[in-house]
């Protein structure tokens, strides 16, 4: 059974579509990330699920039931906001207890439940603190406990880590994942950070301009992006604009490159080559079955385990990641020959 389902949902503000014909289903207990650039409609989608907005077209279902005409109050969704949104006039304990009190939960059930939630997020000793006395990361944990207290049908998180600094962000990310796995609650996690999305989700839906471009496992999205937008969004990629000639052949400028044989129609598209799949060919080696691109080193960035080169090939900048164990990395302005094998060049739709 699906936890959340969107059926051809659209939402307009004035004349412009914020969400356009989106269909999406999230399995019960699944962790799905909605990722995409700012303004692509992620928050709007989340608010449609929560019930703060009603779709202009289409339908939202929770646990198989249509939510048409069902208000936010009745939907039983847990929401975590970017700015924590803790009630400043209530203690940590009372914040977490809020949803139980509105449901008139008896004190002898409420108290142990709140305490259990607080210890789950590691804040059992701050129960009587005021929100303002906590760090941002701690406040967001309280917000998470508060949202989970009502045993929601779905947990909705809207960029919950964006306001935190990098270190807290990374640790809290995995804690959210752990808590979600333990509680088994269907979760939609909104973020604009592809790395965050790929690292914690069961499945990722990538949005652009109100539409979903691709849905799939993080591995799928990373290895087999459906088009150049996805390829560009998920990680550093070289995208060469050219023409697919069919049969594993790709025309780029004056060259014919041998690439992966994909079921794409012939015609204009982009060739995706990951920086770490490109190597430097020795000066006089034969090309073998690989492709050779001669170029000039135009930049070098030290990235810890990696050395990233920017190589100018006929005016196009191509990124190359080398392991930093290379004995002698090429010098700046040195003329080199880049090599990549046909399996590592993947034509993707769009340019």
């Amino acid at each position, binding site marked *: 059974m699906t936890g959340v389902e969107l059926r051809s949902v659209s939402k307009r503000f004035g004349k412009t579509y914020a969400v356009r014909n989106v269909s999406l289903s999230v399995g019960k207990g699944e962790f799905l990330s909605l990722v995409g650039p700012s303004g692509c409609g992620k928050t709007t989608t989340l608010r449609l699920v*929560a019930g703060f907005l009603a779709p202009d077209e289409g339908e939202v279902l929770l646990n198989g039931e249509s939510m048409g005409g069902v208000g936010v*109050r009745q*939907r039983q969704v847990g929401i975590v906001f970017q*700015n924590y*949104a803790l009630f400043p006039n209530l203690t940590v304990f009372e914040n977490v207890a*809020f949803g139980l009190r*509105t449901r008139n939960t008896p004190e002898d059930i409420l108290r142990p439940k709140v305490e259990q939630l607080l210890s789950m997020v590691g804040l059992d000793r701050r129960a009587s603190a005021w929100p303002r006395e906590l760090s941002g990361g701690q406040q967001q944990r309280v917000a998470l406990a508060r949202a989970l*207290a009502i045993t929601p049908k779905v947990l909705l998180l809207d960029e919950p880590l964006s306001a935190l600094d990098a270190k807290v962000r990374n640790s809290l990310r995995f804690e959210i994942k752990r808590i979600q796995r333990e509680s088994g609650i269907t979760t939609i996690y909104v973020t604009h950070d592809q790395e965050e999305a790929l690292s914690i989700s069961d499945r990722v839906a990538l949005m652009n301009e109100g539409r979903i471009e691709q849905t799939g496992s993080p591995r799928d999205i990373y290895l087999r992006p459906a088009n150049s937008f996805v390829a560009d969004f998920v990680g550093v990629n070289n995208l060469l604009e050219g023409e697919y000639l069919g049969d594993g052949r790709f025309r780029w400028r004056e060259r014919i490159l041998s690439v992966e044989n994909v079921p794409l129609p012939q015609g204009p598209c982009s060739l995706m080559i990951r920086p770490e799949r490109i190597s430097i060919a020795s000066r006089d080696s034969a090309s073998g079955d690989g492709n050779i691109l001669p170029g000039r080193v135009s930049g070098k960035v030290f990235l810890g385990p990696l050395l990233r080169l920017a190589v100018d090939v006929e005016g196009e900048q191509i990124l190359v990641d080398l392991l930093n164990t290379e004995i002698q990395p090429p010098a700046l302005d040195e003329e080199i020959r880049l090599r990549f094998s046909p399996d590592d060049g993947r034509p993707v739709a769009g340019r």
Partner: protein
Amino acid sequence: MERRSGTWLLLLPLAAVLGLFLLWPLALVLWESLFIEGRFSLDNYLSLFVRKLYRESLTTSLVLSASTAVLGTAVGLPLSYFVHTTRGRAKNILLALTAVPLTLSGLVVGFAFIVLLGTSGFITIILRELFGINPLEFSAFLFTWRGLVIAYLYFLIPRMILTMTAAWSNANWSLVEAAVSLGAGPVTVLRKVLFPMLAPAILAGSSLLFAVSMGAFGTAFALTGTAVKILPLVIYTHVSELSADIAKADALAIVLTLVTTGVILAYEKFFTSPSSR
């Protein structure tokens, strides 16, 4: 250290203006109020508590100001929300209209009320023609302190609206959304989220309303002459009439100042201290 003295230098012009036009006159008033026929005495102040006129005028002023503060808040609050939710041009027009009563002299406001609701006022006449009311009975109300409450509200409600529109736009609506998603109904949202969130602004607004009506003079003067005994009018009679008693007027002015600044200070103390929540 250097930065600090620089800051002080920048404050100098402000300090000079405040000193010259606020503190110095106030000091003069205080000084004068402490002498009777050249001798130091607190009698001016003691008489304020003894003489019926003064006791009554202080009470009337306090009751009048408290009523206008409460009513102005009660009416201004929903109106300010309405203004806040209005969009585009309509909002600008509403805000401009709200500002108009603030620019009018109190005397103008007073006369406007006489023209509308006085014994031969516009509305009074219409009501007489329609319902046969007695104009004298109807407008007698206008010249009592209760009538003043109505007239004061005319320029106090806009003050409340302006104070609150700022508060509405700074409001954190995620709190309301969080509460609703947790199952809170309108009453709970109002009681546990909106009221605590807006309380500081509401109190700031109502203490402003209180302070303004304590000191308002023109409207009361235009409507009632000096018939209604409120502090500003009593001070006026003491400086203007034949029986002038400047020292008494000074003492009254000091009391008036103390009450208004007291209200403002109490507000500051309760709601802007760092430990407040």
